[in-house]
């Protein structure tokens, strides 16, 4: 019995190991991707990462004025990022209190989960097709396209380019010993559960495997995004795909 069971079990274990070791984009031609494979590529792959970003603290009016601004900043990444009820609670008790800890939740930075995705990467595009994802952000110009999903929505209205204009100058791709690459455009699209900010970096950046790593930095209002991608992982069909 033992002899009978062992070979199939070994095969199953080996197959499982292989499957675990080799994700779809490495082990299968795109034609054989299942919808689950595609979803995995879109959710967690070298081109799609769930990251923890930071919502910086909400500045007081005094701090804003000292910095030359007045009024809480508006727009994507500024509005809707503070949970309801996170403001200061004024207490009638003015004789005792927590001292320096007397502050609201929103006066402190807090983490936020976002998703970064290289929308321009071939495997992502193919996976989007395969998974029937119809809400993929689109830009009209070719380039390295990185989308940031999960930015809270606040019923933003306006042209995507206008909404993205303030964000354009606050993003960069950084590589060691090379000049930072700035996006040529940033656009904001609305989703059901947030907005997606899409940055388009120029192809002239000529990102190559030799760069080894590339760091994506962006400030979206009060949301600060900083993530490093390992370019060595981002190969598809033997080529770097971004």
């Amino acid at each position, binding site marked *: 019995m033992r002899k009978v069971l062992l070979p199939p079990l070994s095969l199953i274990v080996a197959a499982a190991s292989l499957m675990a070791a080799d994700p779809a984009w490495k082990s299968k031609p795109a*034609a054989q991707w299942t919808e689950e494979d*595609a979803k995995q590529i879109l959710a967690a792959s070298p081109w799609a990462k769930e990251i923890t970003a*930071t919502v*910086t*603290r909400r*500045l007081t*009016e*005094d*701090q*804003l004025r*000292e*910095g*030359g601004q*007045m*009024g809480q*900043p508006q727009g994507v990444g500024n509005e809707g990022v503070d949970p*309801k009820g*996170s403001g*200061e609670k*004024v207490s009638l*008790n*003015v004789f005792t209190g*927590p*001292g*320096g*800890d007397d*502050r*609201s*939740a*929103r006066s402190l*930075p*807090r983490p936020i*989960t*976002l998703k970064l995705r290289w929308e321009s990467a*071939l495997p992502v*595009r193919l996976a989007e*097709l395969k*998974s*029937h994802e*119809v*809400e*993929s*952000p*689109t830009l009209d110009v*070719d380039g390295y396209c990185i989308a940031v999903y*999960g930015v*809270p929505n606040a019923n*933003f*209205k*306006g042209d995507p380019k206008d*909404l993205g204009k303030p964000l354009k100058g606050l993003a960069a791709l950084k590589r060691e010993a090379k000049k930072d690459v700035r996006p040529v455009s940033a656009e904001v*699209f*609305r*989703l*059901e559960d947030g907005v997606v900010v899409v940055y388009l970096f120029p*192809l002239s950046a000529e990102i190559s495997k030799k760069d080894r790593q590339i760091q994506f930095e962006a*400030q979206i209002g009060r949301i*600060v995004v900083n993530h490093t991608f390992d370019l060595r992982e981002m190969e*598809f069909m033997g080529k770097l*795909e971004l």
Partner: protein
Amino acid sequence: MTRKSIMTALSCFALVIGAESLGVPAYGQQVPRNVAQASDVSTAPTQVQPVFGAIAGVVRTSSKLPIVGAMVTVAKADGKGIWTTISGSEGIFSIPNVAPGEYLVTSQADGYPDTTVSKLQITAGRATRTDVIMAANVTPQPAVITANSSTTPPAAPRDKAKQSLLARLVKPQPALVSKSQTAPPDTVASLKYPPIAAFGIPVANTPTADVGTPLPVPQDAPAPAQAPTAAPAATAPAAAPAASALPDALSAPAPGPAVDNFTPFAFADFTWMNATTRSKDTVLDTKFFTPEIRFDTNYMTDFNQPHDHTIVGATESFRSGEVQIEQESVGGDFHWQNVRGRILFMFGMFATTTPRNDASYAVGQWDLRGAYKYTSEAWGGYHFNVNHGLNVDAGIFVSYIGLFSYYNFDNWTYQPSYVSSNTPWFFNGVRVQWFPTNKLKIEPWFINGWQSYAKFNGHPGLGGQLLWQPTEWFKLVANQYGYGQDNLGLPHTERIHTDDSIEVRYYNKPDKMGVDKIAYTLTVDAGCQYGGGIQCTGAPSKNKDSFVGWMMYNRVWFHKDLFAVTVGGGDMSNWGRYLTLLPPINGADAVTGSPYFTQLPGQRAHMWDSTVTLQYMPRQYITWWGEFGYRHSDIPYFAGRGGVTPPGYQVGGTNGAPGQFACMSGAPSGASDLPTATTNCASSGGVWFPDLRRSEAKISVGVMVKF
């Protein structure tokens, strides 16, 4: 290019197209089991009975240049089928597996009018070529490439196949833009959907070069009028944390090092600094208006026990033995888009004590002191999105000279030293705030003069501030002033002044219950007046007017900032006494002057002081405080037991002639020179003199509130 060469090019294209070469089906397609993979393209025709034809061709400009990214639509003449694709590199397009029949071929590209080729006959088993020539009506878009573009160096980051795929994937279909149900598509930033062609087949799905992969025969079905309404949930991007899942920020995981590196001075928490509101929150704010309310009440006891309850020589301490409201202010910031304004009214003792140090209102008419006495800040301006911000503001605004804030709630101590207390609290004029980086502010001023509502003489004042906060624990602020002719009756005398401070936090253990923070400030001031017979240096007899001063404070916070103790003081040496606050003897102010305390060129006032201040700060918007202070002067200056108010306590504490000596009866002597006054007061018991002392000690307590 012959048909053969086109097909050769397409075949080569198919070999390099990556995923497509592996036979990736278009979205929504089913790959028939009997269809060979792309590697078998060459053998496919022998295995499959030809039932479809194909269309291939090149989209060109009228000058024969290829157009990349043109949308080519092939519609069956009888309306029972439509296919579409995007032209790839060199303008080549191809649509395989087209049912035989008569077709219309339409090409659309930015900058070109739609072009249609009609009556194209497709037969099974054959690829029919039709080139589309598009005549430009505007400047061609970058999608147009030159004939030489095929020689793009191989080092380019993407190959043609990928560009082609992307071109197909990202090309939007204008008719489908928004899924918003709450606002018109043209005003709502909604996601653009991938273009969907008729029969539910996305445009992007038609492989440009996938000649060997048959498409199913399109069904005769009405084209969907709307895009799908939602993405599959499983592929939707991760949502932000739900609003209901409010994290307890106070115990939340420590955030990463990410900070706001754009908004000036937002990269760190500077609320520990002197002259900075320690509040971490704004209790109430709206998009248009952020209110501000301040209350400042104190009780002071001057150990000299002046019987007229008058404290002398400060802009923070005024009355002894009484509860007094020093400041009641309401106002706030107005902000709408980039237009901004701020107003803060000033009631309480500040309304009468601050303006009295300005003599400029005596120039001309309209009672400027009366006009401005209840206003501490009132200005409007515009914010330009230049660098990290550029503001142009005009009106009356608080000056920054002397480090300490005009508003005591913001300060480490209640009574600052002379270099702060004696230097201006407000300016009237125009300022420009330029933030070239998020750590630097450069702020030039064009103002009426030194602490003045009006311009004293011919020259306005010019000056500026440089504020540099490169890190959370350090601040450098440098204020410079010059050119102004700021003396009443001295039209040719100009003033220059420098006021420079640093703030350093050298200990910071915010979680400690004992000492959690220690910091110090150091301020150095220097200045002088010159011209009109007055000079900066030299012997006192040469009408020397100069100022040198400094102050230093060290603050220790305890118990997570619940308590703080500040110890410090300073010193000033002021030749000409032009920055020495005039004691309000008999109601004297900057205009009237006083014969009892002259401020003539070459006269010196040298003073020093020190304070110990305890602040209890249970909430961020309230401070309970107590302070002991000692001040010393080389000349009689502070009010003694006899006070500085003439006998008789005339209305307002003055006999109405503060510029004259008063008699012992309290009546004016009619003279500002002592010999004449002595003569005139002979029948009134002689000349009255205020009780001025060289030192003063006082204890103060109070409460300050700021929202």
